[in-house]
């Protein structure tokens, strides 16, 4: 209950911030952080809580994005329905990937590679079939209005991503306080022991990947409605998969606030990098990569772990 209270305070604070922030630059920053936090929390549900490292979350993200875009452009279906359909389609893709991988007992690196391959297959498919606009991409016509899930002012997009992120964080909180979550974490920490206690590995992992996929799909829906343009590289490219895993790994895997911490830290880092190097291509991603190496080598619990360590040191440093 304590973590739920903290969560409520954090999101309430994030929610009132735009009332004081007038500049679009700041609002854009908030949107970027919440968007990254949503992507990261989606990955964290499967990777952090479930211990299954996906290298292909773009498969779910891109499916959500393309679903809402294609439904609008090709079939004239309202994006609110597209939002639900996008999340559902992403969940379905996740269920398919999960059913195949977990049914055949893929773990560790093998699971990572298979998810990556699925994302690549989807990227190539979306590059080849006509209804996605193939390599040219797909453009959603500009038509601002809440009923079209498009907003003339940034604050509309802020509230959209705020609500999506809140849903993902509530889901992650629920994992820490439910039977499903306990089972997911038990499988992560010791699959044999969990099965001996009656935990169905296949069913629980499937639940985990679907949940994860749905939130990734939501992030895709947001992306499509925010930028109104998609192409195969943007939707299914490796950059999304990398960002999805980088955020929670930097912030702290398997923790509720890790993805938010990671998203904020990465955003600050990229802003600082831009100040120093300008918009030179590559440099900020190179620093992301270096950070990933550094965190895995020295901070396996991410920034959240850093807090824990220093707290422990403080306690120890006190004279007995």
């Amino acid at each position, binding site marked *: 209950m304590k973590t739920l209270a903290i969560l409520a305070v954090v999101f309430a604070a994030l929610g009132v911030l735009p009332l004081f922030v007038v500049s679009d630059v700041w609002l854009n920053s908030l949107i970027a952080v919440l968007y990254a936090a949503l992507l990261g929390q989606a990955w964290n549900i499967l990777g952090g809580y479930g211990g299954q490292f996906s290298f292909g979350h773009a498969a779910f993200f891109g499916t959500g994005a393309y679903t809402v875009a294609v439904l609008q452009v090709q079939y004239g279906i309202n994006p609110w329905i597209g939002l639900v359909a996008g999340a559902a389609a992403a969940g379905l893709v996740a269920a398919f990937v999960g059913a*195949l991988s977990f049914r055949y007992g*893929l773990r*560790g*690196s093998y699971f990572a590679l298979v998810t990556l391959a699925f994302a690549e*297959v989807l990227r*190539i498919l979306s590059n080849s079939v006509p209804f996605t606009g193939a*390599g040219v991409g797909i453009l959603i016509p500009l038509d601002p209005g809440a009923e079209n899930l498009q907003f003339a002012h940034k604050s509309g997009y802020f509230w959209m991503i705020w609500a999506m992120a809140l849903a993902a964080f509530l889901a992650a909180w629920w994992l820490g306080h439910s039977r499903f979550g306990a089972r997911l974490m038990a499988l992560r920490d010791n699959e044999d022991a969990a099965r001996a206690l009656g935990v169905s590995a296949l069913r629980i992992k499937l639940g985990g990947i679907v949940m994860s996929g749905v939130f990734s799909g939501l992030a895709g829906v947001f992306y499509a409605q925010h930028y109104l343009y998609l192409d195969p590289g943007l939707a299914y490219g490796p950059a999304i998969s990398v960002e999805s895993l980088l955020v929670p790994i930097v912030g702290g895997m398997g923790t509720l606030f890790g993805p938010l911490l990671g998203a904020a830290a990465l955003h600050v880092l990229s802003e600082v990098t831009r100040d120093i190097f300008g918009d030179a291509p590559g440099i900020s991603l190179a620093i992301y990569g270096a950070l990933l*190496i550094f965190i895995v080598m020295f901070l396996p619990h991410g920034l959240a772990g850093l807090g824990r360590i220093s707290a422990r040191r403080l306690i120890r440093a006190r004279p007995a």
Partner: protein
Amino acid sequence: MSEFSILLPSVLNGITTGALYALVALGLTLIYGVLHIINFAHGSLLMLALYGVYFLAAGFDIGPYQALVFMPAAMFAVGYVLQRFVIGKASHDRDENILLVTLGLSIVIENLALYFFRSDTRVVDTPWSFETVELLGAFLPLPKVIAFFGALATAAALWVLMTRTDLGKAIRAVAKERKGARLVGIDVDHVFAMSFGIGIACLGIAACLLMPSYYVTPQVGHGFVLIAFTIVVLGGMGSFVGALIGGLFIGVVESLGGLFLGESLGQIGIFAIFILILLFRPTGLLGHKV
């Protein structure tokens, strides 16, 4: 008969490309067989080697085949240092961590290349770049034929190294039983780094053979890395013969897939193979282990 005349050049072309894929996969499978890690940075290290070949040609007038004197040694050093001081220190006993660290390395290498070299496509022109060899009525580019034999020669050399030398014996001992190897006084960390270095040195050779018929951009490794993974799982993780046959096979699949389905969709065949093998035969279709 006319179908045959389209198919044959396509198959032969696939085989020559496949030999280069095999060479890239050989390094990957050696690293997997000994260290039991999946080197995600393999593609970007190949890209690095290709830039090495390019700059030797552009800056010092050293042709791609003369670069064979320098590149394997240089790439070996890169591989040795990476394994010894970065990858080897990061595992914390979880193989996912290795995957993450090598992913991080590939991001760093690729984006530094982007920063320093921009995304221009660079090629090395040689007088014989466009010469062809006629074989069974099909015309094959000369550089690809040379690359084919170069790949076979490298595989043979690697085989001799692994079976006939003390280093090869140590590597195989470590691959089989690392605790036991440590007990009999083998410096396991050194052998790991040597193996990684040799695997990366293969990329140095591959780059020299590839450059005359190919190009380099910071993203060029992408195309190779998943193909190399596919070959390695197809041939059986850690199997040399498997990597060789798998490489040739994938080269042909890609070539024929491109012929019938078009360049972009043709690649799906490769990924389909990759996914199916991972799901149903993770030990590969052929034998496994070094």
